């Protein structure tokens, strides 16, 4: 059987993933608190975080359930929030598509914003990485993040409403994403994609089910590819 284990790369991933415990922690805790406040029993709060592992979608579902939305609307809206995961999946395929199916299933299960963004940054920075190294890096990133997501949800559910608002935890998520976006803006094409994404996300924020983000994502990808092609052609001319 082929080995997909590369110890030093795993630990590099682990080190890179570790700080995100600081983000996932508060976010998971907040979910535990809010879900418990909404009246969900502990086993359901935990199941949410273990089965779905997608904070934004989980909050969307809670909100809609509290508004007594029909079950189908709750499910469809929460999944729409998660549509970006399909884009992440596509973006990971050139790197990890050669893994056996069950390993791809494990990667898919643990494909979240943080594991995706860190891994894709690393793969672009070091194009010479082997499949084993790419796999080990991904596993390393997720190793500290995922258990702490479960744990934080549990703590939140048990501790309840004792986190003061003044901690401004709502902003932990935007800050980490922004921190990851900065280093990603390597070329004109990347910057153009990001700018178009922001403009479209704000313009189409009125669309239901978070579809504005999908519009922004597609527009950003087209922009990036277009600028890259133009830059290349200019270099050749």
């Amino acid at each position, binding site marked *: 059987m082929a080995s997909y284990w590369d110890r030093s790369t795993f630990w590099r991933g682990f080190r890179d993933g570790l700080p995100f415990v600081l983000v996932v922690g508060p976010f998971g805790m907040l979910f535990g608190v809010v879900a418990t406040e909404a009246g969900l029993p502990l086993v359901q709060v935990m199941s949410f975080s273990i089965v779905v592992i997608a904070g934004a979608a989980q909050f969307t579902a809670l909100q809609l359930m509290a508004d007594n939305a029909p079950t189908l609307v709750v499910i469809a809206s929460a999944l729409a929030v998660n549509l970006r995961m399909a884009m992440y999946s596509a973006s990971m395929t050139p790197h990890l598509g050669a893994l056996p199916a069950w390993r791809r299933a494990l990667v898919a299960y643990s494909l979240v914003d943080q594991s995706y963004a860190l891994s894709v940054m690393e793969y672009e920075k070091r194009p010479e990485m082997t499949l084993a190294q790419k796999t080990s890096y991904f596993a390393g990133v997720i190793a500290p993040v995922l258990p702490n997501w479960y744990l934080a949800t549990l703590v939140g559910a048990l501790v309840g409403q004792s986190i003061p608002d003044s901690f401004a935890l709502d902003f932990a998520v935007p800050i980490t994403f922004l921190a990851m976006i900065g280093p990603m803006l390597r070329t004109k094409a990347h910057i153009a994609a*990001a700018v178009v994404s922001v403009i479209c996300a704000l313009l189409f924020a009125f669309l239901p089910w978070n579809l504005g983000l999908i519009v922004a994502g597609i527009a950003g990808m087209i922009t990036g590819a277009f600028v890259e092609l133009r830059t290349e052609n200019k270099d050749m001319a």
Partner: protein
Amino acid sequence: MSESTTIWVIIIAMGLGSFGLRYLFLGVIGDREMPEWVLRHLRYTAVAVLPGLVAPLVLWPAATEGQPDPARLAAAAVTLGLGYVTKNVLAAIFGGAATLFLGLYFL
């Protein structure tokens, strides 16, 4: 359907659906070659999705009922700037968090 059953249905459907979305390409395409133009678009997935995800949260934070908030705007600018200049994710996070708390305290 009791309320508890409904919630289980939601949890399981969301779990299956989220996994399905995450497995969609990894599972179906696997190691088959993708055309160059597809790869060219996929290279920009991260920079096309994450900024769009963050922009509304920065401009219209839920914590201030959607009103733009100077402390959060300043924190966002510092985080992005530090990340861009230093290429160091951690430095950007801590710089941004420090700006946020200073901003909330003084602004």
